[in-house]
């Protein structure tokens, strides 16, 4: 059985945990920015196969 007692494993672990946290943080920021941008953006309506005059561009 191999026992991970070498100092090298601690270094590797620090790197893995660090990169993991950075990635989670990055995802959180992109998500938060998306929520903010979408909430503050222009009102949006999706086309649902029914004519809605209010969606038409004014002539």
């Amino acid at each position, binding site marked *: 059985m191999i026992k991970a007692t070498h100092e*090298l494993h601690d*270094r*590797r672990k*620090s*790197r893995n*945990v*660090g*990169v993991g946290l950075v990635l989670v943080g990055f995802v959180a*920021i*992109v998500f*938060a*920015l998306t*929520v*903010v941008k979408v909430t*503050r953006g222009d009102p949006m309506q999706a086309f649902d196969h029914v004519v809605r005059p209010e969606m038409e561009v004014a002539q």
Partner: protein
Amino acid sequence: MADLSINAERTYEPTFGDYFALLKPRVMSLVVFTALVGLLVAPGSLHPVEMFAAILFIALGAGASGALNMWYDADIDAVMRRTAKRPIPSGRVERQEALAIGIALSGIAVVMMALATNLFAAGLLAFTIFFYAVIYSMWLKRSTPQNIVIGGAAGAFPPMIGWAAVTGDVSMASVLMFALIFMWTPPHFWALALFTKSDYGDADVPMLTVTHGRKTTRLHILAYTVAVAGVAVALAQTSVGGPITLVTAVVLNAMFLLGALRIWRRDDAAAESDSYLVERKFFKLSLYYLFLHFAALLADAALSGVMA
């Protein structure tokens, strides 16, 4: 038995901290503070999440340019005592890794800045990274004793980027915030160069103290201190200034000018006799100088209720 490890010649396994050190975290604190002030005193406002993202990606861009600087300067960093412990010369991180990290983080920082705020701020951030990594590190640092002066511009951009993140443009106030850091950098560094035993000479980096002598350096410190005093008082007259900025500018610049005059009036024999006490005091003051100026701008903004 065959060695099955991917990188057999590598004896050191870098930690996360070794990579983080490539981003020059201590320089980053100044960048974060001045960018935050630029952002907070600008007319208009950002959502707190956008504000946090803007500051984070300005800091990341600054860190990326630090990594590119360490990649390019690994040879001279190894020669100088102050920089010999950096990740690359000490053998903890490989040069190519620093290059890869620098390029990748630059791209992420600029693209995310554009998405979080606007294209103009992102463009300024990209230019700052280019300026520090290419114009300063690759070109001017090794070729002219004015390297500190021009390199200082890279450190002066953050408040302008913070301002641009909110407004999408430049203004007199943001240019003067830039000018304050730009003019402050030479006296700050040259004072340090006077009292630290220079090993820039060993690394063949032209420093004013070596190329033009210490007497000329003392004169240059005085000249830039006069210039920065003008900028500081002018900044207090702009839309971001106010009574607190003006009082801070007058008091701090009187002290700064006095220090520069003392440095100019004495020679190295006098400086040796008190182990560069005047130069050391001036350098210490220069650290407070920039911090207090930007803190004063923030205080004036709070006073006038801009920070709604």
